[in-house]
C-alpha cells in the first residue's frame, strides 16, 4: 500500500531523513518509532504530500507521489500531531469543510458526518464551537475528519500525546477497529507500549536513518526474551537472556534488588537507539 524507496529529505545542510526504504502492506498497522528529531514527522509530512522529498520515490495506492499527488491526497487521511481544527467553526462545519474539500456528494457527506460524529461520540456537541473542546475531544474530532472521505491509508502522528489513559485506550480500540475494516495505518509515537500494543510491525528511526524494522516480538527476542534489571551506583542496568533459568541464575548472583521480567519493546528501543550505555 505504501512503498518508499531511497527517500531522503534535506533542509539546507541538515539531513532530516537519509535514504529510507520501506514497504507497508494493505491492512497493516505500522509504527514508526524513534527519539525526538529522528525524522518521523518529516517522513509523515512527505508521505502526506505536505513536504516534497529531496530524493527518492514514494508510491501510495499504486500512484507515484511526484506524478499523481492529487490522487494520493484523495485516498489518505491525516491526523497531525498538533490540533489543527478550524476553531472558528463547529465540529459539524469542520467536517463539512473537509467533505467539501474532498468533493463528497452532499447526501453522502451528511450521512458520513452523522455516522462519524456518533463513532467518536461527539454527536451531541456537533454544533458547539470547537474552541471550547478538550484535547481528547479535539483529537477524536480530528480522527473523524481524517476518516470522513473513506481513505485507504490513515496517518497518525503522535495520536495520543497528552491524552488521559482512558481516552488513549479508547483510541487504540478505535484504531484496531479501523484496521479490521481493511484500513492501512501508519502511526508515529513516543509511547513504546502503544506501538507494542497496536502495531504488527515497527520501524525504529534514529538521526534520519532506519535502524531496525520488524515485529515488536522479533525485536524483543533479538535481545533475548528475558531481562534482568538492577540498580547500582551508576544507575539502572539491564542484561538480557534467551533463557529464563540463565536469567534467574544471573539475578541470584546480584546482591541488590533485581527484577526479572520479559523483554519489552522499550528495551529493544533503548538498546537500538543507544541512549543507554551498556554496562
Amino acid at each position: 500500500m505504501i512503498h518508499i524507496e531511497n527517500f531522503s529529505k534535506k533542509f539546507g545542510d541538515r539531513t532530516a531523513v537519509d535514504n529510507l526504504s520501506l514497504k507497508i502492506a494493505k491492512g497493516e498497522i505500522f509504527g514508526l518509532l524513534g527519539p525526538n528529531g529522528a525524522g518521523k514527522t518529516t517522513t509523515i509530512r512527505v508521505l502526506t504530500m505536505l513536504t516534497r522529498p529531496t530524493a527518492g520515490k514514494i508510491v501510495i495506492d499504486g500512484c507515484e507521489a511526484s506524478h499523481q499527488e492529487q490522487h494520493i491526497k484523495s485516498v489518505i487521511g491525516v491526523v497531525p500531531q498538533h490540533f489543527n481544527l478550524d476553531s472558528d467553526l463547529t465540529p459539524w462545519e469542520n467536517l463539512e469543510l473537509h467533505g467539501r474539500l474532498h468533493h463528497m456528494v452532499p447526501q453522502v457527506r451528511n450521512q458520513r458526518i452523522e455516522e462519524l460524529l456518533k463513532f467518536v461520540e461527539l454527536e451531541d456537541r456537533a454544533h458547539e464551537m470547537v474552541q471550547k473542546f478538550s484535547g481528547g475531544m479535539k483529537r477524536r474530532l480530528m480522527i473523524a475528519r481524517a476518516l470522513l472521505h473513506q481513505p485507504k491509508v490513515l496517518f497518525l502522528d503522535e495520536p495520543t500525546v497528552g491524552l488521559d489513559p482512558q481516552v488513549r485506550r479508547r483510541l487504540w480500540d478505535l484504531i484496531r477497529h479501523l484496521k479490521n475494516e481493511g484500513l492501512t495505518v501508519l502511526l508515529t509515537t513516543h509511547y513504546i507500549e502503544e506501538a507494542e500494543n497496536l502495531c504488527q510491525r515497527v520501524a525504529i528511526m534514529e538521526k534520519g536513518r532506519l535502524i531496525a524494522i520488524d515485529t515488536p516480538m522479533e525485536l524483543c527476542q533479538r535481545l533475548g526474551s528475558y531481562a534482568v534489571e538492577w540498580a547500582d551506583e551508576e544507575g539502572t542496568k539491564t542484561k538480557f537472556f534467551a533463557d529464563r533459568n540463565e536469567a534467574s541464575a544471573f539475578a541470584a548472583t546480584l546482591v541488590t534488588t533485581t527484577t526479572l521480567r520479559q523483554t519489552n519493546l522499550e528495551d529493544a528501543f533503548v538498546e537500538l537507539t543507544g541512549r543507554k550505555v551498556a554496562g
Partner: protein
Amino acid sequence: MLYDIWTVFWRDWLVLKRRIGRFILSRMVSPILYLVAFGWGLGRNIQVNQGSYLDFIVPGIIALNSMNISFNSVGSPLNMSRVYHKTLEEYLIAPISSMSFVIGKVASGALRGLLSSLIIILLAFTFGAHALITIWFAIALVLNCLVFASMGLVAAMVMNTHEDMANFNTYVLLPMSFLCATFFIPDHLPTVLRWLIEFLPLTHASHALRAIVSGGETPVFSLFIMAAYITAFCGIGVWLMEKVRE
C-alpha cells in the same frame, strides 16, 4: 475547480455570517472618524477643484478603507492559520489546486472589503457627500479590493510571525493610506516621490474612483494597472502555495 473555489469561499462566508453584526459595527468606526475629522472638521473651509473637500475625500477614504479591510481580512487570518493554528494544512492535504485556494481566499477578502465600502458610501451620503456611483465605480472598487486581498495573501505566505505582519502594515499600508492621493493630490510633492507614488496601486484606485465620481473620463489606464497588480499577486500567491511544500 469552481467547486473548490466555492468551498474555500464558503468557509470564510460561514465565519463572516456568524459575525456579521460585529463586522458591520466595527467597520463603521474608522470611516466615521475620517469623515468627522477630515470632512467636517478640517475640510469645512477647504475647496478642492471647485468642489467641497468632503466630496473630494470620500473616494479617497473608500479606496484606503477597502484597501485595509481587504488586506487584513486575508492577511492576518491566513498568516495565523499558516504559522500558528496550522489550519492551512487542511487545505494543503486536500485534493484541490493551489489556484482554487488563492482565488477563493482573495474573493472572500474582497467581499469583506466591498461590504465595508458599502457601509462608507451609505455613511458618506448621510454626511452630505454628493457622489456619482456608476458601474465603473463598482468595477474600480472591486479591482481595488482584489488588489489588496491578493497582496494580503502574498504577505501572509511570506511573513513568518504575527509581528512581521504588523510591520508590513506599518511600512507598506500606512504610508500608502496617506500618500496615495487619498487626502490630497500629490502634484506638489518632489518628482522622485511623485514618481514612486504613481507606481503604487492605491494611487490608481484613488485616481480612478475620483475620476468616475466627478463624472470625468473612464480611467482605463488606472484600471489596467490594478488588474496587472491582481494578476501578479495571485500568480505569486500560487507560486508561494507550491513553495510552502518544499
